[in-house]
C-alpha cells in the first residue's frame, strides 16, 4: 500500500485534512488492486515440468465412475509425480448448479466434466478454454477420434470440449420378464406402431406395463424427428414444427389408451429418476429409454437380465453422440498441465483400459479396439457389442452440438409432455405450447 500513498502525497510535512482523506482513499483503492494482483500471481507458475502442480477436477457420476477415474488419475500421477489432483465428484442432480456457482465465484475447476446440455452455453460465455491450438500443435491428440465425435465438441468453430465417451440411444428391456412369459424380445428396426402393439401385449400377458412412455424423453423425440426427415435443431433454430410434435404426442396418447404404458404418476416417476431408478430396473415397466453406456449402471441395480436395442423406427436416424466431455477452464492458471491430463485420459491405452466404457465407448478408436478386446465386465462387453453393431447402421449426418438453452428445452418437453400424459392438455395444444416454449428457451424469435 505504501508506495502508492507516498506518491500520492509527496513530502508534505503537515498535510491538510483533505489530503489525508485522499491518501486514505488511495489506500482503499489500492487494496483491491493489490489483492487482485496477488490472485493473478499464480499465472507465472505455468511451464517448468518439475514444478509441483495441483489440478482441481470435477465430474458427476456414480461410485463406479469415481473409482475408475481415481485409478486413472493415480496412474497419471505415477507418470508425472509433480502433478497431483484435487478431485470432486457428485451425483448428476445438482452438478451443473454447483459448477455454475463455482464459475460465478471465479473458482471453476481446472478440468471439469460437461455434456451437450451446457457446453454451448459455457463455450459462448467464455468459460471453456478453446483447445483448437492445442489440437493443432499436437499437445492434445484428437486425430484418432471419429470425425463426428471431435466435431461434436466444437462450438462456433472452437474446440470447447474433448469427448470422453461415445454413446447412442438404447432401448433397454427386461429379458427375464419376457422369457418368464415366453414373450418375444423387441427388435431393432421395428416400427413405432409395431413397438406400441408389442408393449401393449406385454402389459396384457405379464401385467407389467410394457414400456415407459417416452413422450417426455427428448432423445426419443429427437430420433423420431430425424426418422421423419426433421431434426431437433438446425443452425441453432428449431428444426421441427407443431404438427411433428402433435403426431409424437398422439402416438403415445394412443399407446397409453392401448395399455402399453404405466399410469401417468409412474410415468412421471420414470421421467424424474436417475439412471439407477429407471422403471425397467424397478420392475415398473418392461422397457426404458436410455443411452447405451448406461447399461452397467442399470444392470448393477437389478437382478433381471437386460437386453438393449436401438429405438424403434429406422436405426440410421441414431448417431454417435459424445456422451460427455472434459473441458479446461479458460481462467485456469495451469492450462497446459490441465490439457495434458485431458489428453492422457482420452488417449492413453492404460488409462483407457481402466476407464472402460463407463463414460461411453473410448473416444480414441485405437484405445477402443484394445478395450473391446480386453474388457471382462459382461455389461460393458454388451455395451460395446451393441454400439458397434448399431454403429454400422448410423446414417451419414449427425447433429451438431445443441444450442444454448437446450437444457431448458428438455425440461419444457418433460413439463408439457406430462401435461398431455395427465390428460390436462391435448396433443395439439401441447405441441403448440412446446414449440412456443422451446423457441423462447433457445432465444429464437
Amino acid at each position, binding site marked *: 500500500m505504501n508506495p502508492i500513498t507516498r506518491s500520492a502525497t509527496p513530502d508534505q510535512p503537515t498535510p491538510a485534512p483533505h489530503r489525508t482523506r485522499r491518501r*486514505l482513499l488511495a489506500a*482503499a483503492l489500492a487494496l483491491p488492486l493489490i489483492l487482485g494482483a496477488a490472485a493473478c500471481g499464480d499465472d507465472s507458475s505455468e511451464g517448468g515440468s518439475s514444478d509441483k502442480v495441483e489440478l482441481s477436477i470435477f465430474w458427476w457420476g456414480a461410485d463406479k465412475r469415481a473409482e475408475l477415474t481415481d485409478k486413472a488419475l493415480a496412474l497419471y500421477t505415477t507418470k508425472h509425480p509433480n502433478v497431483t489432483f484435487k478431485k470432486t465428484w457428485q451425483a448428476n*442432480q445438482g452438478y451443473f448448479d454447483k459448477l455454475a456457482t463455482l464459475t*460465478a465465484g471465479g473458482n471453476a475447476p481446472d478440468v471439469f466434466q460437461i455434456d451437450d446440455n451446457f457446453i454451448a452455453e459455457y463455450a459462448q*460465455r467464455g468459460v471453456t478454454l478453446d483447445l483448437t491450438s492445442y489440437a493443432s500443435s499436437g499437445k492434445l491428440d484428437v486425430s484418432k477420434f471419429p470425425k463426428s465425435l471431435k466435431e461434436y465438441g466444437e462450438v462456433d468453430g472452437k474446440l470447447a470440449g474433448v469427448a470422453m465417451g461415445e454413446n447412442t440411444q438404447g432401448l433397454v428391456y427386461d429379458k427375464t420378464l419376457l422369457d418368464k412369459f415366453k414373450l418375444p424380445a423387441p427388435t431393432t428396426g421395428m416400427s413405432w406402431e409395431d413397438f406400441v402393439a408389442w408393449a401393449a401385449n406385454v402389459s396384457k400377458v405379464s401385467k407389467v406395463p410394457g414400456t415407459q412412455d417416452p413422450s417426455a424423453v427428448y432423445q426419443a423425440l429427437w430420433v423420431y424427428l430425424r426418422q421423419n426427415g426433421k431434426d431437433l435443431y438446425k443452425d441453432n433454430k428449431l428444426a421441427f414444427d407443431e404438427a411433428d410434435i402433435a403426431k409424437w404426442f398422439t402416438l403415445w396418447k394412443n399407446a397409453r389408451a392401448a395399455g402399453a404404458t404405466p399410469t401417468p*404418476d409412474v410415468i412421471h416417476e420414470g421421467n*424424474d429418476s436417475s439412471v439407477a431408478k429407471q422403471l425397467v430396473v424397478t420392475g415398473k415397466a418392461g422397457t426404458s429409454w436410455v443411452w447405451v453406456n448406461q447399461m452397467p449402471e442399470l444392470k448393477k441395480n437389478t437382478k433381471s437380465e437386460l437386453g438393449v436395442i436401438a429405438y424403434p423406427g429406422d436405426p440410421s436416424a441414431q448417431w454417435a453422440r459424445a456422451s460427455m466431455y472434459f473441458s479446461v477452464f479458460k481462467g485456469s492458471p495451469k492450462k497446459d498441465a490441465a490439457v495434458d491430463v485431458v489428453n492422457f485420459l482420452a488417449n492413453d491405452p492404460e488409462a483407457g483400459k481402466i476407464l472402460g466404457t463407463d463414460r461411453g465407448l473410448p473416444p480414441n478408436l485405437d484405445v477402443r479396439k484394445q478395450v473391446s478386446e480386453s474388457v471382462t465386465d459382461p455389461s460393458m462387453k454388451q455395451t460395446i457389442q451393441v454400439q458397434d453393431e448399431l454403429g454400422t447402421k448410423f446414417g451419414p449426418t449427425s447433429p451438431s452440438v445443441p444450442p444454448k438453452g437446450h437444457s*431448458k428445452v428438455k425440461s419444457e418437453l418433460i*413439463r408439457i409432455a*406430462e401435461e398431455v400424459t395427465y390428460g390436462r392438455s391435448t396433443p395439439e395444444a401441447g405441441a403448440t405450447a412446446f414449440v412456443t416454449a422451446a423457441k423462447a428457451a433457445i432465444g429464437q424469435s
Partner: protein
Amino acid sequence: MTMAQMPVRPTEPAPPVPAAHRRGRAVRRRRREDLAGYVFLSPWLLGLLGITAIPMLLSLYLSFTDYSPLIPVTEANWIGLENYRRMFTADPQYWHAVRVTATFALIAVPLKLAAALGVALLLNKAMRGIAAFRGLFYLPSLLGGSVAVAIVWRSMFNGDGAVNSFLSLFGIEGKAWVNDPTWALPTLMLLAIWQFGAPMVIFLAGLKQVPIELYEAASVDGASAWRRFVHITLPMLSPVIFFNLVLETIHGFQGFTSAFVLSNGTGGPVDSTLMYTLRLYNAGFVELNMGYASAMAWVFLVVIGTITVLLFSTGRFWVHYSDSEAK
C-alpha cells in the same frame, strides 16, 4: 470501498490540524471511544455489509442486466426493465409459480397455526409426563426444513410408500401422491403443517401468561369452555397469534427445501409444486439467467414486505395488548 473506509474514519483526527488542538483531549477521548465502539461492532457490521447489504445492492443492480453466473459481473449488459417486463408479461411460468406459492401460503399457514394452537391448548394441561409430550410434539420442527425429512416424506407418499401400505389395510388403493399433479402440492402442505412445533411452543408460552383469575371469574359467571376460549384465550393470546401469523406467512412464502426435494428440483409434476423460490433458483442456477432471477428476488422482497405491512395494519383491529390498557 465502503468496507475499506470504515475502520479508517476514527483515525481522521490524527494529523495536527489547528481545530483539533483547540478542542483538546476530551474530543480525542471521545473519538477513541468511538473507535472502540466500531471495533466491537465490526464483526456484525462486516457481516451486514459483506454478506447482506452489498450482495443485496449488487443483486438490485444485476436485476437490470442480463447477468449470467458464467461471466464476470462487469461484463453484464444493462438491459433496463427488460427482466421485469418479461416477468410480468412474457413468462407464464412466473405467474404459475405465483399462483402455486399463494395457494400454498393461503392454505398451509392458517392450518399450521390452527394445528399449533390446538396442540398447545392440549399440552397446556397439568398432567403426568406432559413435558415429554411437549418434547415429542416439538420434534418434527427440530428436523425442520431439513432435507432428510423431505426425503422421508417423499418415500412415504410414493406409490409403494408407507401411506399407501397403511391405506391398503382399509382396502383403499392409493396412488403415488407426490407424482400426481393434483396431490403433490397438498402433500407438500401437509409436510409444512406437520412441522407446527415452533409456533406451538410460542403459543404455549402465551397461554401460560393468561392470568388464571380471568378464567376463574368467567367460570363463576357460568361461562362455558367455548366462551372462555373465545372471550378470554383468543383476545389475551392475540399478540402471540399476530406474531406467529406474521412469521409463518413470511416463512410460508419462502418455502423452498421441501418443494425442491419432493420434486427433484423441478417443481413437478407439471409444475404443480413450483414454488416461487424454486422457480427463482432454477432461473438463476439452472437456466443461468441470474439477472432475471435477481429481478424475481426483488419483486418477491417487495411483495412479502407489502404483505407484512398489510398484516400489521390489520393488527390494530384485532390484536389486544393488555398492558397498554392497564396503564
